[in-house]
């Protein structure tokens, strides 16, 4: 399923949960694990000084410094690397999302693993250069699925027996469906739960829908699911479909809990990575932060590919 996994790591406790999943997956699928660490963020105008993301110090980054950081990473992940047969470490300087995408463009991995959202824009070295968080920007532009692990509970990657596909009927969602189906079909006995959360908007605005309207919309969504997804299951039988109304990210997390999901697959559909929205957290980021299992994001580019 995966032959080349890119793990974007801060080599710090913030990425520990994601690390656990990345190493586990690489072992399970006998994949090459590519640890990418963006060690410094350029600062001071045109100068070659960068702020080391681990120490917070202003440093001039040269080959010696990179070699030293590489050693640090090896020490940090010493236990996991002992059991990992095929890995490489790449350290670079730049803005994290851009350098992860650059490395992905060069190495063409079939999965990118990232830790969950952090308070990275609040005074740490990862200063904002463009709107949106690293997760949003990588999820939006990557040419392969992006697996996001935020909570400790999400990192206990056992066998996969239950996959939840969060459908939103977009083009990206078509690609996400194909990927979710591929994962489920590749694992004997795995269930695929197709789920759509219908946004009924904030109740307090007074614009809430009547119950008839909600039920009409649910019927409509179920029809769409049958037409777009169930019709394309190609003989895969262990599936279910549900449509719930409410606040989408809450409903997805609740549904995944009910189905004891080991993985949520969702589409990254929006082109907007607006700074304010990023601060509040997109639907995707909310799910990542709250879910007890890893979340895989699939974007529109994959629909094309």
């Amino acid at each position: 399923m995966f032959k080349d996994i890119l793990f974007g790591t801060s080599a710090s406790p913030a990425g520990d949960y994601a690390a656990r999943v990345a190493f586990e997956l690489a072992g399970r699928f006998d994949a090459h694990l590519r640890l990418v660490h963006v060690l410094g963020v350029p600062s001071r105008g045109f100068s070659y000084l960068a702020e080391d993301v681990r120490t917070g110090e202003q440093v001039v980054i040269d080959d010696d410094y990179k070699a030293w950081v590489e050693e640090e990473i090896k020490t940090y992940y010493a236990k996991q690397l002992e059991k990992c047969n095929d890995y490489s470490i790449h350290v670079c300087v730049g803005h994290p999302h851009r350098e992860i995408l650059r490395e992905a463009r060069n190495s063409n991995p079939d999965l990118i693993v990232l830790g969950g959202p952090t308070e990275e824009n609040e005074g740490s070295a990862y200063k904002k250069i463009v709107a949106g968080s690293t997760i949003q920007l990588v999820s939006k532009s990557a040419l392969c699925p992006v697996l996001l692990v935020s909570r400790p509970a999400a990192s206990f990657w056992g066998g996969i027996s239950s996959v939840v596909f969060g459908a939103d009927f977009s083009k990206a969602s078509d690609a996400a469906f194909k990927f979710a189906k591929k994962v489920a079909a590749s694992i004997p006995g795995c269930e695929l739960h197709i789920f759509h959360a219908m946004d009924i908007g904030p109740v307090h605005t007074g614009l809430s829908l009547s119950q008839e309207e909600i039920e009409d919309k649910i019927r409509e969504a179920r029809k769409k699911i049958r037409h777009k997804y169930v019709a394309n299951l190609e003989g895969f039988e262990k599936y279910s479909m549900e449509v719930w109304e409410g606040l989408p990210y809450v409903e997805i997390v609740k549904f995944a809990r009910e189905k004891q999901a080991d993985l949520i697959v969702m589409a990254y559909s929006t082109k907007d990575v607006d700074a304010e929205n990023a601060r509040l957290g997109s639907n995707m980021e909310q799910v990542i932060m709250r879910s007890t299992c890893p979340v895989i994001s699939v974007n529109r580019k994959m629909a094309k590919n």
Partner: protein
Amino acid sequence: MPEGTLCNKQTVDTKEYLNALLADKSGKQYYSEMEKLDVDTDKLWKSIKSTLRSRLRTWLEICAHCGMCADACFLYLANDRDPTQVPSYKIQSTLGEIVKRKGKVNNEFMRMVMDTAWSKCTCCCRCGSFCPFGIDMGIMFGYLRGLCFSQGFVPWELKIGSGMHRVYKAQMDVTVEDWVDTCEWMAEEYEDDWPGLAIPVDKENADIMYTVNAREPKHYPEDIAEAAILFHMAGENWTVPSKGWEETSLAMFAGDWGACKMQVEEVYGAMHRLKPKRMVVTECGHAYRATVIEGPYWAGLKDGRPPVESIHYVEWVAEALRTGKIKIDPAKKIKEPVTYQDSCNYIRNAGLKNVAREIMSYIAEDFREMTPNREHNFCCGGGGGFNGMGRYREQRNVGLKVKLDQILDTGAKLVISPCHNCWDAIRDMEEVYHAGIRWSFLKPLLIKMAIPPDHLKVEE
């Protein structure tokens, strides 16, 4: 004559020399060698005699020491009106002394001159507009930097910067291949959102040839993608050159006039090769000054103009908004109070003040002017290379206070800053002083506000 291996009078023309400089962390060895560097006084005097023309000689002589320039200088104001920060004092005690002594100055003196030329003047030229005689200390410090560079007394980062231009024809180590690949990458990355988006390289006879700042391909190529989106939205016939795409000139900040000429001729070469109708410069102030204002003289062009009509990005934006090539959704105009940072290099020194106001009239509902503004605006605090030199970090941070106060006095929390240097300075200002301000180039804001033509609307 103790010439150092790193600090010497040589220009940086090879990758080996450049890498050796980069490997010298924070210029430790470089500055230590500088303490022993001899001054070639004969060469210095000879150079002054052949290059110190009548305008600068007159300026040095007629200064009446009236002090009118003092309050014009943001560094004087930021440093509690320290008399040694009065522009006329700063230039008289450095260039004035060298001329008086006919170039007979020693190492210690030259180090003082270097520190003054790069940490006490950003060449913003504000003092020149307040001097009753029109004496422009910024211009004189620019000249003085050239003298310092030729003697090897130049801050470490700028020795590297000018070397980058000599070796890579760009302020950073971005090769032609890197650049072209980055353009392809950005077109690929954004074409799903903007159908038909392309970044045409080396297209001849285009209406626009677009040039950038090397930091864009190196660290934030989104900026190139955003420029492409806006040109695409406006239906422009445009291109970027594979060679001659770098518009900036750290060589100008360094006083390396040889490298200035090399760099600008690279851009003019692209103009000759591709024959565009116009050139548009990215949102960068000093790049515009270097290539459009000063460059023609470095390249020996008698009419003082680049080979094709060249405009700053703000001029293109104003035109696109004025003619309706880009339409702003009235509902998406900036509602919050917003202010505009007038870059010295294209506002005070190139007269584009009204263009900036025109843009704001289309995109902002509550535009707040800083005081003073337009050609009288203060330097952001990071111009002339000030942002990038570790040796003068503290002095730069003190200097930022004047701009910070100006911004806070407007009541706006958002600063539009179509200049890389100003943008950096304002970002650093927030990092140092935690004032709660935000800053942006024009491009990302325009993309959010524009109404895409129907054929570019994408179903999500």
